[in-house]
């Protein structure tokens, strides 16, 4: 029996799929979905994400499960989230002394992205940081 015998169909429940080119909604539309903690279903909309609003970008992964490294327990997310090509956290945060170089991919909620008929292509795969 394979180890991942409990693995369910991961595409279930997500509106978009890997490889789809989508457009990130405008900041105004995204702000309408946020609660007082700047979250939607627990997904935090960080300040730097506003820079990418209205951008056309490809989905590289749909997030259904995440490992909480602190507790070392795998959890399912409350709502499918999306990882978009090139959109990596730059680690700059207001009030923090040091810049974080962890280079996490930003997580996007389904409500913050929309379908796109014409595929948009971005030039460089990653902006290089020195």
């Amino acid at each position, binding site marked *: 029996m394979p*180890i*991942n*015998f*409990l*693995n*369910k169909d*991961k595409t279930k429940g997500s509106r978009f799929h890997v490889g789809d080119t989508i457009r990130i909604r405008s900041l105004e539309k995204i702000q309408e979905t946020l609660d007082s*903690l700047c*979250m939607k*279903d*627990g*997904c*935090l909309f*960080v*300040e730097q994400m506003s820079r990418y609003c209205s951008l056309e970008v490809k989905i*590289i*992964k*749909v*997030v*259904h*499960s*995440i*490992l*909480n*490294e*602190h507790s*070392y*327990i*795998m*959890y*399912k*997310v*409350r709502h499918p*989230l999306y*990882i978009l090509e090139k959109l990596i*956290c730059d*680690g700059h*945060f*207001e*009030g*923090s*002394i*040091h*810049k*974080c*170089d*962890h*280079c*996490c*991919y*930003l*997580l996007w909620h389904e409500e913050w992205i929309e379908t796109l008929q014409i595929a948009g292509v971005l030039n460089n*795969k*990653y902006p*290089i*940081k*020195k």
Partner: protein
Amino acid sequence: MFCQLKSISYLQKENSYFNNLWQSRIKFLCSMKKRIFYLKNRIFKPLLANSGASFMEGDSSPINGGDWVKIRSTMEIKNILDDRGATKGCAFTPDMYKYCGKNYRVYKKVDNFYDEVKQKMCKCKDIVVLEDVLCSGKLRLFPTTCDRNCFLFWHTSWLLKVS
């Protein structure tokens, strides 16, 4: 709280009691495996030392973002790793073996990072992340894979600078 990593607990759906119980068992097995691995290395590594491939000397200049590097061979890296399978605290995971011997571009040099386990910012040195070298999220015994797509951390001693 201005970081998605710090707010990860808000994202997660509560697991069932049995799921948590099952995963606690995995946590226990993993810690046991680490101890066995350490003991095995303490006993057998001195006997097998220097039995592998020759150690290639690379360019000694510091590695920065944008540089091209070659990841050393599996044998070379095994010779560098300590008894815990790490170099100065940077763990070499089984997921990383498939990248050995290949050339990649450095995406970023890591000086500070948010450590999820310690839940604080940590300083580090001689660590880089490479373009397209991402964690597969496959973890033994876990029922599902982690979809976070994290960049793997590479110690510069595992890399050779390519001009």
